[in-house]
Each structure stands twice: as structure tokens, then as C-alpha cells.
């Protein structure tokens, strides 16, 4: 297991991001080691989604420095494209491409962004659809799939990029509870493979099972940053304790 700070793949250094007058990130500094699995939680508006969306530059940072796998995300278009090819994101809103089949969704980027041949891209897509147990749905369109199946196809689409870093932005919060289970199971399987994962979620069972570190964010700042045992047993900050009490329902 990687130790925080050694061989970092993502580093935030005093990063600020505002939307209008709202401070989404307020001087965030963070170092994610290669192969680390990070879970980020926090109340809505705490900046956790913004944090992961900065990593693949869906949001541009206002100030500070952000480096991903040695590439400085300073606004250079080629750097952005390069980072996006090293990362892949699974969204809350299940936004698969509705006009493409499950296979088409997963094969699109390997062919278009990585330059694989159609055949190679589809073979790769099939492999990852199988990995998340939706191979039998390969020829269906997203509209024909359940929410859980759609989200697993979205995970296959992300995996098919064979990214250095997998980003998850609340991947289960739009799903029914029984579908949440199947998606989390797929994510746990993937977590065993040693890829860097940064996951925004409130699924504390998942966090306990796979996270190397859990970050608690509030008001655009990282309030708590600890391994699961310390995070759950002995949170240092009062805000973390209050939050945990709330979401664990006691």
C-alpha cells in the first residue's frame, strides 16, 4: 500500500476555486500517492465534487498549483488532453451516450482518444464490460438498461481508457438502494487491482472496505485526512464527528 506523499500522482498546492462569490475550494493542498484509494466525503457544497472535477479539468482552478502524473494543469490545451487520457470519470448523473450501445459507449474513447482500431477498441470494451458483469447487455442502448446497469457500463467506459487515475463523483447517489449495492460491488472489485482511485461518496461501508485514506471536506477545505480506522474511531475535528454522527444515523 502506498504511503501518502511518496511518489505522488496528484498534488494540489494551495488551490482556490470560486463560482461567483461562492468559494468551492479554499486553499486546498493534497497529495495522492500512486495506487492510493481516496474517499472524499462532506456535506453538499463542501467542495468535494469540485475537487475531483479539477483533476481532469472539467473545472479550471483560479489559483494555486495542480499537477497530475507530472503534468502541470496550467491551462495548456495539450496538457489538459493528456491528463484527460490518463484519467477517467464516473459521474453521478449516469451520463452515458444515449445514441450508442453499451459496447459503443465503452469503445468510443479508446478508438477516438487513444487511437486504437475499431476492433481493438471493441475487444477492450468487451473485456471491461465483462469485468463489471454487463457483457450480456453489450448491444443494448442505455435507455434499455436499469440505473445500476447503466452505471456499471459507465465504469466499464472509464476502465476501457485504462487510466492511471479513476475518478468517481458520487457514483451511487442517483441510484436506488438495491442498485447501489451492485455498483459498489463492482467498484470494490476494481479497487483490488491497485489503480489510483479518488471517490466522492457517502457510502461509508465502501470507504471502510477499500479506502487507504478518507478525506472529510467542509467549506472548501480538507478538514480531516486519515486512514479509515482513525477516521471512524477517533476523528480529530469536531465537524467530522458531527458529520459522521449525521450520516451514520446515530
Amino acid at each position, binding site marked *: 500500500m502506498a504511503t501518502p506523499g511518496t511518489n505522488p500522482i496528484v498534488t494540489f498546492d494551495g488551490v482556490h476555486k470560486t463560482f461567483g462569490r461562492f468559494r468551492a475550494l479554499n486553499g486546498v493542498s493534497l497529495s495522492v500517492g500512486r495506487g492510493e484509494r481516496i474517499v472524499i466525503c462532506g456535506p453538499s457544497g463542501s467542495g468535494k465534487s469540485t475537487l475531483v472535477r479539477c483533476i481532469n479539468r472539467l473545472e479550471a482552478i483560479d489559483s494555486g498549483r495542480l499537477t497530475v502524473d507530472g503534468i502541470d494543469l496550467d491551462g495548456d490545451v495539450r496538457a489538459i488532453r493528456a491528463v484527460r487520457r490518463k484519467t477517467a470519470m464516473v*459521474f453521478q448523473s449516469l451520463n452515458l451516450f444515449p445514441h450508442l450501445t453499451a459496447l459503443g459507449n465503452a469503445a468510443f474513447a479508446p478508438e477516438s482518444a487513444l487511437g486504437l482500431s475499431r476492433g481493438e477498441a471493441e475487444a477492450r470494451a468487451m473485456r471491461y464490460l465483462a469485468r463489471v458483469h454487463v457483457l450480456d447487455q453489450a448491444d443494448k442502448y442505455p435507455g434499455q438498461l436499469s440505473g445500476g446497469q447503466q452505471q456499471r457500463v459507465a465504469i466499464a467506459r472509464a476502465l476501457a481508457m485504462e487510466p492511471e487515475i479513476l475518478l468517481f463523483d458520487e457514483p451511487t447517489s442517483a441510484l436506488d438502494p438495491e442498485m447501489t449495492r451492485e455498483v459498489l460491488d463492482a467498484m470494490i472489485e476494481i479497487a483490488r487491482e491497485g489503480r489510483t482511485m479518488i471517490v466522492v461518496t457517502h457510502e461509508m461501508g465502501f470507504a471502510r472496505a477499500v479506502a487507504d485514506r478518507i478525506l472529510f471536506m467542509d467549506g472548501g477545505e480538507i478538514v480531516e485526512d486519515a486512514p479509515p480506522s482513525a477516521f471512524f474511531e477517533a476523528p480529530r475535528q469536531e465537524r467530522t464527528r458531527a458529520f459522521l454522527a449525521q450520516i451514520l444515523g446515530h
Partner: protein
Amino acid sequence: MGPTDAAIRPAGSARPLAWLRANFFGSIPSSLMSLALLAALAATLPDLVRWALVDSVWRTADPAVCRTAGGACWAVIGEKYRVMLFGTYPFDQHWRGYAMMAIVLTLVGVSTVRRLWSGALLIAWGVGLSAAMVLQFGGFAGLARVPTSLWGGLPLTLAIFLGTVLGGFPLAVLLALGRQSRLPVVRALSIGFIETVRGVPLVNILFVAALLFPLFMPAGVNFDKLLRAQVGMLIFFAAYTAESVRGGLQAVPHSQYEAADSLGVSYWERTLKIVLPQALRIAIPAVVNDVIRAFKNTSVLVIIGLLDLLGGTMAALEDPRWTRFYVEAYLFVAALYFLFCFSLSQYSQKLETEMKTGRNY
């Protein structure tokens, strides 16, 4: 008679009555409106039927026969349809016009079947349109050359229409994309073009193309008048259709752009493979509207002296012996226009339902 019979039998005869009551006499205003319309029909229909069917003349070479009959003179169509359909195109070459129309209409007809959409169909379009051009222009393969100044009638209408749509649609997509571009120059140029053209009547654009444009050209340089008119029609269509396509583009959720961006694909990959397929599907009804309008707009060409279908009809009616039967001639042309436009609109409705039910997307 059992109660069951009683329940059933009146229902059979009552159903039309009930339908009438529900649809025409459901309320007092509705009843009054129905009665007024009935009275209007009673006042006009008998005369219309007498004119169109009873006292009408269907075939004669002598206009005097029509005049004495007093009814509709449908014979004018039989006598003059060649001029209406082909304008000033050389009379003995009219078969080329028929052949051209057969090719073009076959291509359009085949293209309405989605199952047949393929690379082969694209090739068929290329070959077919080339053949149609060769037939119209001539000067090739033993065909006499026919200058574009002699073109006319329905082949001219179809040629301009197809040129407008096939050339204008890609331009419309580029303009719609340009209007959303992040590059200020591209965006400004697109908006400027679209709004300028939309702010000017079509007739105005055609006048500029036909009359003004040659004045600006250096001496000796002259583009074909038909080509100039074609370009005018094309940019007019493109400006309007760009707005229809923009509507489709705006209906594609932002999350689709983000999903594509997060996968690191280029702008063009994202646009061509993710955004446009969704946007164009949404834009179909509006675009078909533009296409129908483009077909009807070809009738404006007569103003700059091109004898399209409507122009051919006007030319045919210059024959003083037949000129008084213009109503019949125009009704015939109207029927032709209706046939084309109605087919287009029916097809677009079919396409919409197909796309709604087809494979859930």
C-alpha cells in the same frame, strides 16, 4: 326483443349520431359554428362541383370549346403541361427532363427507407446526381448542350431545391457550431452571417445575386445566373436551418459534453460522434420545416427571370388563346407543390415516430 338486443341495436345507429353531437354540436358556440359552415358549404359547393366537374372540359385543342362550356377548362393542362413542366427547355429534349426527374425522385424515394442507408446509397447519390447534371447540361455523350438560360420548369425547381438542401445543410451545421464556438472570431462571423441573411427577404438576396453581384465583378468575369441564384437560395436556407440546428445543439445536455471531455477526445470527435447525432435527431422536425420552405421558395426564382415550375406555368399562360384559363393551370401547379410538400411532411412524421420507438432511442 330482449334487453340485450335493445342495448345493442340502437348503439349501431346511434354511434354516428353520438359522434356528430360530440364533435359538431357539443356546445352552443360549436353548434352555431357548425351550422354556419354548413350554410357556407351549401352556398358554394354546388357551384364548385358544377364548375369543376359538370360543366368542365377535360380534353380539347380548341379554347373556344371551353368558353362555350362555361365550366373549368382542364384541357389547358393537357395542352400546356410541357411548357409548365419544362419551361423554355428545347421541346425535343424534354425526355432528358423526364429522365432527370425520374433519377432524382427515385434517389429521394429510396433514401426514405432507413434500412437502405449505407455507403452504397451515398455512391448511388453521387452517380445519380452526376447523371442528372449531364442530362440537364448536355454537351456530353452525344447530348446537345442546353445553356442554363434555357432551363426551366420542374427539373429546374428540383435542381435548385436539391442544390439548396444538399449544399445548405452542411453549411447550416457549420454555422450553428460556429455560433457556439469559443473562438470569438468564428462566433462573430457566424452570428453576423446568420443574422444578416435572416434579416433580409429572400427576394432581396436573389436580386443582389442576379442583378447587383455582376456589377461588382471585374469585366469579363461572369458567373452563371443560375449558379448565382443557387448560391442565394443556399445561403438563405443555411441561415435559417442553422438556427434549427442550434435548437438541437442546445437541447443536448451539458453532461454529454462533460462525459466526452472527461474521456479526452478532441473537439471534432466530440462534435461529430457525440453531440451532432443527438442534436440533429432533436432538430429533425424543425429542419424538415426549413426543407419544405426551401421547396416552396424556389417559386420566387420567377422574379429574377428564371422559369421554375411556377415560371413555366406563367410562360405557358402567355399564349393568348389559353391565358384566361389561368385558374385551372395554377390549381394544377398548386397540386404539384402540395404533393411534394405534403410528402415531405408525412415523411418527417414517420421518421420522428420511427426514431422515438426504434431501439429506445
